């Protein structure tokens, strides 16, 4: 579902944020992307969604090349950005309707999906209010609902749990599992190692634009004599 082949991205010809990295995410997989601050996680996410252009390499999402066939690639993605402060002067319902139209979600399906997600996230009451009046967590929830409304085969989520209350975080994790079970791909970044431990089929650890590890958690723990993921992560990233 996601193919990242020998991709490099340099900012201002000086900072190599992503340095010749490659990885795949197959259908049915939940892959966690972990790394310290400034390791290149958000840059990778932005490259995947077409927000920024790679200097070298090839990125494919749902068999569509992100550079050559951007519209089809973008239609295949549900993306949650790292900041939920977006279109604050629109009402929640207006924002969802805007996203529904842009991703061409038919009226009936749109109503069903908004209904189901608002119920799961407790958003129903807030829909007629401007996003500006929402708390940080509520803003994150409306972004999640909007990103997943068109039921895309690939989910790319940048720190999706930040700001969510326990119930909403639980619901989102459930949705991620359900989505992967249906044969789709979920690729998300996180700083919370417990979330990665409980949710991921595979983790990718990145530091200074280089992939340090790509594989299952079990294998990582076996390789490191059953140490805790936290300790392994610290040892890997502080080398």
């Amino acid at each position, binding site marked *: 579902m996601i193919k990242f082949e020998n991709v490099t991205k340099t*900012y201002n010809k000086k900072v190599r944020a992503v340095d010749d990295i490659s990885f795949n995410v197959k259908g049915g997989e939940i892959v966690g992307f972990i790394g310290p601050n400034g390791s290149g996680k958000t840059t990778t996410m932005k490259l995947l*969604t077409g927000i920024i252009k790679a200097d070298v390499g090839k990125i494919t999402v749902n068999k569509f090349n992100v550079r050559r066939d951007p519209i089809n690639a973008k239609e295949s993605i549900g993306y949650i950005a790292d900041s939920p402060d977006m279109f604050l002067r629109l009402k929640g319902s207006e924002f969802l309707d805007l996203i529904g139209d842009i991703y*061409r979600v038919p009226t009936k399906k749109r109503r069903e999906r908004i209904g189901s997600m608002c119920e799961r996230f407790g958003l129903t009451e807030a*829909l007629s209010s401007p996003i500006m*009046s929402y708390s940080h967590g509520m803003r994150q929830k409306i972004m999640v609902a909007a990103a997943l409304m068109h039921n895309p085969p690939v989910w790319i989520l940048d720190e999706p749990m930040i700001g969510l209350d326990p119930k909403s975080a639980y619901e989102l994790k459930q949705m991620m599992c359900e989505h992967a079970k249906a044969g789709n791909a979920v690729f998300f970044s996180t700083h919370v190692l417990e979330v990665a431990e409980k949710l991921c089929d595979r983790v990718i650890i990145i530091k200074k634009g280089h992939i340090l590890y790509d594989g299952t958690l079990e294998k990582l723990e076996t390789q490191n004599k059953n140490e805790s993921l936290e300790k392994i992560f610290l040892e890997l990233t502080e080398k």
Partner: protein
Amino acid sequence: MSIFLKLTMALLKTVEPTTEEKKYKKIFYNIMGFIAVFGIMLPMAFFVGVIIYALTSQLLSMGSGTNAVKIFLHLVSVFSFIFGINVIFSVFYFSGDIENLLPLPLKPYQIIGSKFTAALISESIMEFIVIIAAFAGYIIASGAPFYSWIIALFGMITLPIVPLIYCGILCMLIMLVTRFIKNKDTVNKITGLLTFIAIIGIAVMVSNSGGFDTEHLVSALADPQNAILSTMDFIFPQIHFLVDSTVNNTFINMLFYLGVNIFAIALFMLIAHLVYFRTVVEISGASGQTSRKSFSAIVGKMKQRRPAMTYLQKEFRLLFRTPAYFTNCILINLIWPVFLYIVYLLQGKTNFLDSFIYDIHNGNEETVLFFLLGISAVSVLITAANCISSSALTREGKHFAFMKYIPMSYMAQINVKAAVSIIVSGVGMLIYVIAAAVYLNLGIKITLFCCLLSLCSVAFVSYFGIFMDSVNPKLVWDDELNALRGNYNIFFNMALAILLEGATCAGAYLLFRFTDLGALIIIIMLFLFIMLLTAFSYLLCSYKATKNIDELTF
């Protein structure tokens, strides 16, 4: 460095324009800067200097040499006040930094003083050039000695203090009265309307003061009992002392000038100390309006529409709901009839508008050509001045990434953004054009042609503005007014559009004067040329702006 200075520098950073690292973009910006400085700012300053020089020369012989420069500085102060209202409201009440500053261990005077100084510096840079030009005109005409220049330079920096303090005091009193309104946006829109009312008030004042032909102006200025000047001296007393100390180099008047400014600052700080923090805390807690509707009623309204239509609606909602955009992009379109009314009043005894209308009725070719050139020029000016297109990408700010990750081509999004500018500027222009056509009894065919010419000119600037903004959009700002303030793209777009339109109009007129081509042929050529410019700016967006958006890294 003291905390006050450090804080002022930090606040100034938020209104700084973005810098560009790519070499070709740097060159582009340098060229634009050169055009703006030498094509617009310096000629404007020169024009002001010449007018003050001419008026002072005449008034000197009548014994009232200082009156021209005085009335001009009063005028500058009035404009500082009008345009300062929104800025001061934004800086003191609606900027995002206040919630970060309040918990810091800063003394109230440090926050208030730094905010005021930052607003004064960022708002007064353009004014400085005009003020020094006015002083130059006066000093050269009156033959004042060398040290007058030093006093003039000092005046240039300090003159906007009093008008901005008036704005600050007004702003705090309004916030004190309206602090129970829990929606910040409502208060912010009220200030926009206040600015509008102030401009209309000035127009009414001008209309009540009689004709303003040159002869009348000089004799009015020479009158020692001039009512307007006396009133203005009362409102801005520091100007009298500044001008007097420049002329006579009297130290005592310079002390009085400093005294008025220090008193104004002290009064402002006192009122701010008593009122500001009390009201700003309440305002910080205020949020946007909330409403409760049943879920079925909300989703029942949802219906699939074309992406472009819903994107267009989003753009309009943000323009109308964001006070800074509502005032600077929408409300500004309503100001033009007021300016036209002032022009009508300024004709005084010369009645050039009446003779213009008479010539149009009689089909005078030159007048008809002037009328059409005027329509095209005003259309360009209105579209550039409302900055809807030249801030189209800048307004996206931190969520600019949205444009890049949604499955909608960049050109489709540019077309929608251009459509917003064309609709707002075009509808405004069409109302004026149709009203003028009805008043002048032009007939349907000519009216339709005028409308087409106007729309074409609007479309040209709309696409051109988006291209200009795509070169280096200012995406980092902490409140919406800062997206528009200190934004070079808006200024450069206006400068280039005016220069291009000016060259087009001048070319058309020269063709009429110096060739045998009739007015009709030249009008058709003008229309075709504006269409060509529109096509050119569309292609610029299609090939270059889309590439600029694609390459933007943030």
